[in-house]
């Protein structure tokens, strides 16, 4: 009895956290500067929500195991990336106007690049273990942790909206197309969503800029400032996953509709809306979820193209530029961030699996 109440209350609690998260998002939309912390709050509350959910459903051990695994994966990734980067020709201090060799050696010594690779590697690990990611080679004196945190908040918010947008557009479109299976509307919606993936996003983005920013002046295209600045980049970023989700939803919904329990539900005389939400949607979410794990990590870690087009101060741009600058600490920091994001979002997806399909049991 007690256990049941407990489980119920944690469910309520996680629901409450979810609501809090969405409220924070709405707040976030109305102003950009206030909720920098809140964006982390959202993410944190979501994690908390699922942790409490996991506690209530008795999967603490499983969680623990996953976290240990994640740490090992991240450690291996750090090692691989560290070594891979040194394979790349060219160093961080090669410039067009070549530095006198002695001066270059001096600069390299300052950053410990003169030491044997193994020593550098262990130095890095030692520092990374206490969350010190070092200082950037290119942006002199700026700590990598600080740089990432600052730009990540922008990429995160941008990515989060795009993620939301792609679900909010993708799932209804997919449902709609499925409900009008083999009609004009179905073909229309599907062709439209295939067109969404047909062009590279730098073209989509620049068309949006020319039309909505340059010609109509409805939305700003750059000079990152207010919430309005999110609109065009979010749309550009969200189109592709939205189209993909629409197609995925349609095909799984078509599968689900044919299954027996839907027929039973219909026979029971449930309203179409109830069937849709209680049965069809819930049962078609598994493939979408599988896709959304990597999507979430990818989209939150920023997009180079969009950040360049819209002059957004985000980490997608940082990643490409740090590679071209051979700014090793920054590349490593961003890689670690990405893998952490990937691990977290895959974890979230796993928990959501059991939420949508009770047959899937965690840790089994």
């Amino acid at each position, binding site marked *: 009895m007690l256990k049941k109440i407990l489980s119920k209350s944690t469910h309520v609690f996680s629901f409450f956290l979810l609501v809090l998260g969405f409220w924070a998002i709405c707040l976030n*939309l*109305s*102003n950009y500067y206030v909720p920098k912390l809140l964006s982390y709050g959202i993410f944190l509350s979501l994690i908390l929500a699922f942790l409490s959910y996991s506690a209530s459903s008795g999967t603490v051990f499983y969680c623990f195991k996953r976290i240990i695994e994640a740490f090992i994966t991240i450690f291996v990734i750090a090692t691989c990336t560290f070594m891979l980067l040194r394979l790349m*020709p*060219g*160093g961080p*201090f*090669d*410039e*067009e*106007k*070549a*530095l*006198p*060799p*002695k*001066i270059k050696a*001096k600069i390299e*010594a300052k950053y410990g690049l003169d030491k044997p690779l193994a020593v550098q590697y262990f130095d890095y690990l030692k520092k990374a273990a206490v969350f010190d990611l070092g200082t950037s080679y*290119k*942006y*002199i*004196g*700026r700590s990598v942790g600080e*740089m990432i945190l*600052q*730009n990540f908040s922008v990429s995160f918010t941008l990515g989060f909206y795009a993620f939301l947008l792609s679900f*909010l*557009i993708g799932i*209804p479109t997919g*449902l*709609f197309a*499925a*409900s009008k299976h083999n009609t004009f509307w179905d073909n229309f919606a599907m062709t439209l969503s295939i067109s969404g993936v047909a062009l590279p996003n730098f073209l989509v983005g620049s068309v949006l*800029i020319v039309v909505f*920013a*340059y010609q109509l002046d409805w*939305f700003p*295209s*750059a*000079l*990152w*400032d*207010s*919430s*309005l*600045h999110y*609109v065009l980049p*979010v749309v550009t970023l969200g189109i592709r996953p939205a189209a993909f989700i629409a197609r995925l939803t349609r095909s799984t919904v078509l599968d689900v*509709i044919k299954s027996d329990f839907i027929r039973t539900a219909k026979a029971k005389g449930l309203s*179409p*809306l109830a*069937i*849709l939400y209680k049965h069809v949607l819930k049962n078609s979410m598994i493939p979408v979820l599988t896709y959304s794990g990597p999507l979430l990590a990818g989209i939150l870690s920023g997009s180079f193209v969009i950040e*360049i*087009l*819209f*002059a957004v*101060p985000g980490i997608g*741009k940082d990643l490409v530029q740090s590679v071209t600058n051979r700014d090793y600490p920054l590349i490593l920091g961003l890689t670690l961030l990405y893998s952490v994001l990937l691990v977290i979002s895959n974890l979230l997806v796993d928990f959501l699996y059991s939420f949508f399909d009770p047959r899937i049991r965690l840790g089994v």
Partner: protein
Amino acid sequence: MLSFKNFLILLFICLTFLLNACVKKDTSGDFGLPKSKTLRMRLSGEPPTIDWHKSSDTASSLITSNIMEGLIVFNYTGDEVSLAPALAESWESLESAKKWVFKIKKGVTWSDGEPFEPKHIVDGWERLLNPETASPYSYFLYSIKNAKEYSEGKIKDFSKVGIELQGHTLTVSLKQPQDFPSLLTHSSTFPVRKDVVEKYKDKWTEPENIVTLGPFKLTKWIHDQAMVLKKNTGYFGIQSRTENIVFYIIQEAQTAINLFEMGKIDVIRDLPPKDLPALRKLKEFYTYPNLNIYYYGFNTEVAPTDNKFFRRALVHAVDRQQIIKILGGDQKLLTGWIPHGMFAYNPNVGLAYDPVRAKAYLKKLGYSSKNPPPKVELSFNALEAHKVIAENIQAQLKENLGITVELKSEEWKVYLETLKVRPANLYRMGWVADYPDPSNFFDIMLSYGENNRTKWKNLEYDRFVEQASGLVSNKGKRLELYNKAHQILVSDEVPVFPIFTNVAQHLISSRVISFPTNVMREFRLKNTSLQ
């Protein structure tokens, strides 16, 4: 099943969510600064640092040259570049330019209200040379006695370096005669407040910590987004005519051009070649010469470019005018090594377009239709403008000489690495003047120069150039030596293939008055005003 009505409801929910994002219009752009008093410029990238002893790029120097000032500044009258006093009141040379004496200005204050003292200059130089600082520009002062030794850690005692300060008189002893004052215009020789640097360490360049004495103060630096400068009312020179400057960091030129055309920024300093044909028609388009050269180097150790006649044939076979036409037509054709408007510029030296002579050279080397010339490798770093030029050279060499050119486009750092190890037969390079003196250009090709990637060594050339750079006062003799060096470099031996001098191409809004346009690409904005 799902009815159309339900779909509409869902769509409506989505849309309200989207619209929610658009409700609140932002009130103020430009950080709340009035547009009429604010100059808005584009920066093409985040400045790596504005610590003037550590920066080595143009974005950083744009900022430092507006918030700081050194002993001496350049003064531009037409094409002429001369020196004008700033923190130094006057200067004179002793012992035929081996010793220089500077009188330092009094009554100057830093932006935090502290008085400026001559020792801040010595502090700055000490910091520049100090091995701990690891400054990329520390070699700038290597001509001072013992400076190099101090910088390399061979001497620990800074007082042994040839810098002497007595009251407001600064005496500098050099190893050999040199036009030393022109070096002091460079931002790496600016004074520094050692106490501030020591107090804030790496964070001393942040707007809340930095202490400067130039015409502007740095008031805001939102990394990766914008920098805001405000007029420094305590500036010792003529007060700036502009109240505020906002530098927006916008990497993509196309984005910046859109903003310019929408009137949201006032100045764009560099334009992508793709857009030039269209942008040149605008009345806001400005172009003026700069001191730089765009050239290709030959790898003189690898066949077939190890042969100087083959190199000459290649240079003769390329019509530079065609390249300039493709780039929009503003660039100045260059056959010599020294850009237009600089001492020792010589339009008559070097190899001009002459396909007949090019063919003759190849014939002389024994190449014919039966024995076709070998293929040539040409490399460049992957950038739009370079690609277009490389593709054109490839087409021209094919057409004029029947030589197959293999293009190799490489990512920037890979490119630099291959240049170090084994450059291609032909490789793209450029040079922008650090100071307006031909020695800056001729020094590149010295057999021991770090930037001489051609592997070409010529002792005669070295001798001419070394002799010439010491002759500060004897201009006639200097010119003669440089002409001889020039002849060897671009007419006889031809390890390099100069193509053109690039120009600055700006978009400057009509509300901006007297934007600085000078050959050194210095953008000191205190004289710029707004309509």
